[in-house]
């Protein structure tokens, strides 16, 4: 009986294929397209509601947030472009009741393409380097750039941050480029008021950077960086990606140079300058079922090792707090070893439904942070539900965070 069914299936297969093709061509006949034109500006608005379970006696905290973002990119003369992007986050908190606004001026600069292979930029630029997912040691301009954290997803923190004021030039050649930038010191004073451009956060010291890229083969495209900062030794960076096979990409991101430890910088102790390195390296594998898995190892040679971290945890709460605050501000892990896992499943279970999971595991104190997002999108609206769980011993990296668990629901509208 089964054999008969298979034979029937084989006999009718060409006819069914012809029917499928005819149906598809029929759909195409009825398709009406309206060629969309590129716009100079894009905006979004996002409303979010979150509830956090705090560590202190299981207390809960509710927060509402409304965010508004705008991006503008206009070619106003041959070779000239004006670029502007900004985001405003307004939060309302209950018990104690409060409201605060934080504006983040991400980009505001002009760009001049002098020749096809020579480009100059001037203004506030959110410039980013690095190929890793969870930690970017060569993203040198990340320091103090985040004013408003709306999610623990590393991608969100890279997105919602201040640019630095700089002059930047780039020369391109076939398969390579050289970028040079200079970022001056403007002021040493941080300004946390709602609508301040906060130049003290991003231009508190004079810095320059050189970045050179050269594609060696289709598989290998390294980038070398040199960072100079007033009163600081040079830092050298490497970004490397390689295509291992059709489904796997490997990356290596390394920054090294003489520098003081995170602890001495955080507590303003006498500098213990030595050669130190920071690294993030991982692989991303994508299955045929639209699931991408990333495993990344992260090392911060300027942070505390196990003994130092244990000692800090047992010591003064003030010193511990200052260290954690400083590490968060410069976006460095507070301990030396960390593992990051990321899973992204596009069109999971059904079309337009994406699942993302991030897991950070501190390999020094074994604390963990899990973040999971389920997101569904229509043409102009996204809705998402996020869940975060911080787990670990008291004064561990994640166990010491005030929130044990966070639920956040959000809706974003794209104009």
């Amino acid at each position: 009986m089964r054999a008969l069914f298979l034979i029937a299936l084989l006999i009718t297969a060409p006819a069914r294929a012809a029917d499928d093709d005819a149906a598809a061509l029929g759909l195409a006949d009825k398709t009406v397209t309206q060629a969309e034109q590129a716009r100079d500006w894009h905006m979004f608005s996002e409303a979010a509601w979150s509830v956090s379970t705090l560590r202190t006696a299981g207390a809960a905290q509710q927060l509402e947030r409304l965010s508004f973002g705008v991006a503008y990119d206009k070619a106003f003369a041959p070779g000239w472009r004006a670029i502007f992007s900004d985001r405003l986050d307004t939060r309302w908190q209950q018990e104690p009741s409060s409201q605060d606004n934080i504006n983040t001026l991400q980009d505001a600069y002009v760009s001049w393409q002098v020749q096809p292979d020579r480009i100059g930029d001037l203004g506030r630029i959110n410039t980013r380097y690095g190929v890793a997912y969870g930690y970017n040691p060569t993203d040198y301009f990340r320091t103090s750039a985040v004013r408003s954290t709306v999610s623990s997803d590393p991608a969100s923190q890279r997105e919602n941050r201040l640019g630095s004021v700089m002059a930047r030039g780039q020369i391109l050649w076939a398969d390579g480029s050289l970028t040079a930038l200079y970022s001056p010191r403007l002021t040493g004073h941080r300004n946390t008021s709602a609508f301040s451009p906060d130049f003290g956060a991003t231009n508190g010291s004079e810095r320059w950077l050189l970045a050179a890229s050269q594609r060696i083969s289709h598989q290998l495209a390294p980038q070398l960086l040199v960072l100079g900062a007033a009163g600081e030794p040079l830092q050298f960076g490497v970004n490397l990606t390689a295509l291992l096979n059709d489904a796997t990409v490997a990356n290596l991101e390394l920054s090294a140079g003489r520098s003081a430890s995170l602890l001495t910088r955080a507590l303003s102790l006498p500098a213990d300058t030595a050669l130190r390195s920071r690294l993030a390296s991982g692989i991303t594998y994508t299955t045929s079922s639209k699931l991408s898995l990333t495993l990344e190892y992260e090392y911060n040679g300027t942070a505390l090792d196990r003994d130092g971290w244990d000692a800090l945890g047992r010591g003064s709460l003030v010193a511990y707090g200052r260290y954690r605050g400083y590490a968060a501000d410069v976006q460095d892990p507070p301990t030396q070893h960390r593992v990051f896992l990321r899973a992204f499943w596009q069109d999971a279970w059904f079309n337009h439904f994406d699942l993302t999971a991030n897991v950070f595991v501190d390999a020094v104190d074994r604390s963990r942070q899990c973040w999971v997002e389920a997101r569904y999108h229509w043409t102009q609206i996204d809705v998402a539900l996020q869940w975060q769980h911080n787990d670990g011993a008291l004064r561990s990296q994640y166990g010491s965070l005030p929130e044990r668990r966070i639920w956040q629901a959000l809706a974003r509208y794209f104009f």
Partner: protein
Amino acid sequence: MCEQALGVARRVAPLLHITFAALVALACAVAEPAAAAPTAQAILSASDAIRNPDKPFGLTVTLVEYRDGKQTDTNTLAVYSKADPNSGQFRSLIRFVAPARDANKLMLKSGNDLWFFDPASKASIRLSPQQRLLGQAANGDVVTVNLARDYQAQLVAEEDTQDGERQSRRCYKLALAEVSPDVTYHHIEMWIAVADNRPVKARFYSESDRLLKTAYYRRYQAQLGIERPTEMVIIDGLNPQWVTVMRYSDFAWRDISEQWLQRDYLPRFRPE
């Protein structure tokens, strides 16, 4: 090997030259049918030349996706493409125009070297070919690709087949076998019109002989000097209810600097 060499020569030749060569071939075929019959590789090269302009160009691609007969997605992309002078394969800079969620995101495709740039996070992410296959962009693979470079063609039959306009058309049926390990599709069946070398239909297969896609090339219009297909209808091999209609518009010759076709230029790419 000779067929390959001929294919390369035909591909890089200006279109007028190809047209002239085709006329000469046709004239010879009338005089000496057996000796001057076009080789399978030459037919494929001539078909490539119809799909792929021979100079750097730009166009707008509108993709409309259907599942189970219902429209589920619409995307608009601005594409700049240029052939590699060495390999002959196309390198493309792609900017997402719509929907608003994806607007201004960018992609660079140069063989298997794939980079994605998100202007919001400023992140340049290298993609594996498998990641590329996930999205609609995968369908771009069957647009600007020089098949004669990556596949060895064999003439299987000359037969009547129904084209994208549902007209019966006399076609060469070619079997294409991969010669380059980097190609997305292991082998391809392709129907090319006998009269004018227009690509009519293609079926793309995996190494395990699984049908991945069926593509119809249709709505031929005069674009950039010759009649070219301005629409592709792509039917998913696994689920024939998943259909993508790709429409091309705004064809134009573009000056695309060789220096632009790299990761570091991606954030700066802004189509006219």
